[in-house]
């Protein structure tokens, strides 16, 4: 950023941003009015923001223009269904809200079944199956075999409809080891995520606000 071009308004806004940042940081000391203020302001702004984007990106171009300017009357049907959401606040007809909900839920559930089956089951089965390619190199073979065994152990761990016998108990215990390594990987990565977010805020404070770093 070239500091020569920063206007007074921009400076004020950056100070506001810095102030709000400290309001939230103050929660680390304890829950306090400054934190509550920033949090409530945020809730309000995010709803106001959603209203604006929803109107400009969807409601106006996709419903109002086609229906009232181009006279595409078929759009009345989704409009009527959509208006049923308001029934939530009118006790006498509040059941009407179930109409759009049923429609949207049914749509979502129906769309998700083949999609989940294809992306998360069939594709993952394909990934899990060992192919003759693994014989190309020793480490291919060993790692593929470990992944294969690990998968079976983990699935066994999450199998509930039979009492565990000696064999399945052993297999399930193997599954726990794989699960723990997997969660450990997530843990390590989550540490990274949290620290990154903190660095991001410090970059804002030190760079944009105080200009200490470039």
């Amino acid at each position: 950023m070239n500091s020569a071009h920063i206007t007074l308004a921009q400076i004020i806004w950056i100070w506001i941003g810095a102030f709000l940042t400290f309001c939230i940081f103050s929660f680390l000391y304890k829950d306090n009015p400054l934190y509550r203020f920033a949090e409530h302001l945020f809730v309000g702004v995010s709803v106001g923001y959603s209203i604006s984007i929803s109107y400009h990106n969807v409601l106006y171009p996709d419903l109002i223009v086609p229906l009232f300017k181009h006279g595409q009357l078929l759009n009345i049907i989704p409009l009527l269904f959509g208006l049923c959401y308001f029934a939530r606040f009118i006790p006498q007809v509040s059941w009407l809200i179930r109409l759009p909900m049923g429609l949207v839920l049914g749509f979502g559930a129906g769309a998700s079944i083949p999609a989940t089956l294809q992306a998360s089951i069939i594709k993952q089965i394909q990934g899990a199956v060992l192919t003759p390619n693994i014989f190309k190199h020793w480490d291919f073979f060993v790692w593929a075999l470990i992944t294969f065994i690990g998968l079976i152990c983990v699935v066994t761990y999450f199998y509930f409809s039979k009492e565990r016998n000696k064999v399945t108990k052993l297999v399930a215990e193997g599954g726990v080891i794989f699960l723990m390594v997997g969660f450990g990987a997530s843990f390590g990565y989550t540490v990274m995520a949290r620290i990154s977010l903190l660095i991001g805020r410090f970059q804002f404070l030190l760079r944009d606000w105080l200009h200490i770093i470039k």
Partner: protein
Amino acid sequence: MQRTIPLALCLGFGIFMIIQFFIPHPVSNAAYDIVLKWIRLITIFALVLGVGSLSMHHTTKIRRKITGWQYSIVTIIGVIVTAVIGLVGGVGRGSGLQVIFQNIFIPVNATMFSILAFYMASAAYRAFRARTKEATILLIAAFIVMLGMVPIGSAISKRLPELAEWILTVPNTAAKRGIIFGLALGSIATSLKIILGIERGWLGGGRQ
């Protein structure tokens, strides 16, 4: 009627979406296009629920002067000012909405989750214990990934990033794939129950 019609809609659209997946014929595609458009337009109104209950919640708080009602005023003002600026001024480059987004929304939203780093550090010291065999394995794997994924890891040992990579691509993949299978089956079961009206919690009145 208050239950049958919504359930019928749910069943009808659910089955349509499943069957449509297998039929490439233009007839099915045309119907599919219409359904997609309708859903897109209907779901925009779901915003009504969020805005409605939020403003009701806060206006009641203000009216009844429930503890912390002053903050509710802040929220309501936030909604109104942002919405007016956004609706009137548009969403484009350099609009008032964009200024509010960059200077109020971003700082608060980003900082809220950045404070978790502090709690992570304090929990690292005070709570993350290798109290069982499982937790020990977890922490060891976490150490390797934590170091292997950042530059300092390769400064310590060249092997470390490779080991981290191995953990991620071999045992981690096996574990996560097992979890994916479970999640996928669970989601298929839930979707099926919703379509068939076996699971009808969404009709309200608690479960079933």
